[in-house]
């Protein structure tokens, strides 16, 4: 029963400071909520299965007493079977509602592309570096600077193969495709320095295709832009 011991450890660990579960933006927080929520729902399933499993295997194990007996010939049980068909469906409905809501909310529509209020950054990926172009034409390589508390709209484009733009401490990733621009929004980032990575395997130095993200105050962002 070694596996049973591991489950509370897993539970304990999730309580710790895990990057993705403690993100520093609104977008990331919504995603973290879904992760924790789905995990909690799934732990119900896991617990039920493991308890039944442990009980049945222990209770009905072969002993000297029952070695010769032939068990009753049970074909099935309609009520039980309906129960474990319907309950999971209900559980999944509970999960599906916030999934659909947040997925729609986080998928940027056309209007975002030209939204005036937001800060727009063009992200160009190529084997194995990132170029960031800001609204006034300023360019940086492997270093992204964005202002805190705003909606940042990333315009992602690749010069060669598929890459994926990921700052785990802020929010999820989006693929960077050649010949097609994808949009990703990160809302309300907090001040700090975060590691960014390429998440889609892109060739020899994929592991080294990293960048740093600096979230700074509105003021210092504007100053930095002018420099």
């Amino acid at each position, binding site marked *: 029963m070694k596996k049973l011991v591991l489950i509370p450890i897993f539970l304990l660990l999730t309580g710790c400071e895990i990057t993705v579960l403690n993100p520093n933006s609104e977008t990331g927080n919504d995603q973290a909520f879904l992760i924790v929520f*789905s995990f909690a729902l799934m732990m119900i399933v896991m617990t039920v299965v493991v308890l039944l499993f442990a009980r049945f295997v222990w209770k009905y194990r072969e002993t000297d007493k029952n*070695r010769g007996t032939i068990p*009753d010939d049970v*074909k099935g049980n309609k009520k039980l079977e309906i129960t474990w068909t319907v309950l999971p469906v209900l559980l999944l409905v509970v999960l599906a509602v916030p999934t659909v809501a947040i997925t729609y909310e986080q998928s940027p529509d056309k209007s975002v592309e030209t939204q005036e209020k937001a800060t727009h950054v063009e992200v160009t990926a190529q084997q194995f570096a990132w170029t960031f172009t800001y609204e006034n034409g300023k360019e940086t390589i492997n270093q992204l600077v964005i202002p805190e508390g705003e909606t940042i709209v990333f315009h992602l484009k690749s010069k060669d*193969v598929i890459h994926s733009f990921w700052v785990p401490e802020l929010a999820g990733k989006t693929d960077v495709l050649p010949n097609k621009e994808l949009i990703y929004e990160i809302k309300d980032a907090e001040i700090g320095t975060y590691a960014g990575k390429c998440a889609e*395997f892109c060739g020899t130095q994929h592991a080294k295709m990293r960048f740093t993200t600096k979230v700074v105050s509105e003021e210092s962002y504007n100053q930095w832009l002018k420099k």
Partner: protein
Amino acid sequence: MSIPFLNQLFSLPSDVISAWILTIIMGAFLTIYVFKKKKWPIIWQFMRTTNHRKIGTLYILFGILFFLRAGIDSLLIRTQLAVPNNDFWVFQGDKYNELFTTHGTMMIFFVAMPLLIGLMNVAVPLQIGARDLAFPFLNAVSFWLFLAGAILFNMSFFFNTAPNAGWTGYAPLSTEVFTPDVGNDYYVFGLQVSGLGTIFFAINMIVTIIRNRAPGMKLTRMPLFPWSSLITSFLMLIAFGVLSIALYLLMFDRMFGTAFFSGNEGSPVYWQHLFWIFGHPEVYILVLPAFGIFSDVISTFSKKRIFGYPAMVVSIALIGFLGFMVWAHHMFTVGLGPMANTFFAITTMLIAVPTGIKIFNWLFTIRGGVVRVTTPMLFALGFIPTFVMGGVTGVMLSVAAANFQYHDSHFVVAHFHYTIIGGTILGIFAGLYYWYPKITGKVLDDKLGKWHFWLFVIGFHLTFLPMHITGLEGMPRRVFTYQWSDGIFLLNLTSTIGAFLMGSSMLFLGWNIYKTHKYGLNTGNDPWNGRTLEWTVRSPSPEHPFEPMPVVREIDPYWYAKVNKRRIRTTANVRPAPISVNTILPVLFAFSLFVISIGMIYTWYWISVIGGTFTFLLLIVRFLNDERKAYYREEHSHE
């Protein structure tokens, strides 16, 4: 290291050189052994056989051989990832990329598939009362095509041009612009040739199960392993067709200047659609037969018929059907939009329902039974909690918005190893221990089997449980290194230790097989107190089983015959058995396709022409030699 050959300098890295040396030494030992023990007649016999048990045995033998190779790959991967900024041997950059590409491709196509197909070959005909597969000749062709494809794929490494675009071969990285070496051509043709074998096998299996069941073995009385094999075969037929098409398009992109997956008209996302329309059914192709094995094993060792048989069958079919409707959950981050993303999120969640039904039915099969924990049962019991852990992370991954964080991280790596190892591999081991007596006549040692199980399962959880966390800590998959500042050193070290524990468990399997063959005794027809027809025939199963043919009147006919102390009724009035022949044609046929492929890979087209001519001649020879003709003549003279 540089080696002069034909006035040219070939530079070979040290890992390739070690592989050459190791292969030559082992090959020499094997040749000496074969000569000394005079094994040539047996080898010759197996090369010409069309018997389902022998072909199944070949599938399993080569599956295990490739398992060792792909397993070594995984140990090398884990060694490189043991500590941050590691510089282990040559495995950084391209070499590491080759490592995980071969590990993935081989484990899926040349380990899991042949082992499952091998077990189907051995067990399914015996379970349904068929005397062989419907098309024995085609069965041999399927096997040799698989082997030809596998050898092709493996060869590339020995010439230092292993494929390096991942087992998913995502375009445009896999097109000739970015990977001009022949490595990914080996990938294309290796999978193409072995995939053809898989399609032939699927047709064979479907026809066998539909046409060749024993009298009275209605579909509603069929054990669950044949049921899952039937549905799996339909999945194979459709999914491998799609893979074939995808690989053809990739071949044209790589070799003949088309642009299906790049440029302004083409798109790399097309490849992803095609690949996952194959790829997602593929994971159900891997897991459904394992479900079938577990159903039979759990029922046998609980001494009870399977709980809720109709629901079990329906849920296999449902999983198979839904398996074709979820492929884009591998593509949530490629910008398909919220409509597609939520649709595929919900279909993916739905798969959890039939899977849950199966889990609970297994649990309630155990309930009220008398559970004998033998090695196969132990693997089946280990499967339930392990697979459920993989299943629940699957539901978590289906949550589209959250998937933006999980996607392409080690969380995904943890998830699919939980399902593929926890489902498929544990199922293969359970099946192997369970049917081993039907293959060889001997039962594998139980004590060593349990050592194998515990080391394997503990090693497994040690390896993959921490990967959930490293993924959530932001470790992408397919990276050859990470930094101290990422804070994931200890978790990765644990994974590495676990991997070596898993590796060491295989030594127990090896020792077990050796010991059983040296000292094991023949155990008779029915070592496990079985329920289904395969336990009524001799062990190892004879070339002409079921003479006379049993007449089936209920599910688990052998069990109820034993319980009610009666004999299974038999009949002499049966449809003729498929005709077995001894023929070298299948080997030659596979060889000719191998030659075509080599010609294509290196663009020496004249070699392809020679190979193609050879294939054509072989087809003519085959058309002129129908083993059924003699039979028809005999039939005619009786009338």
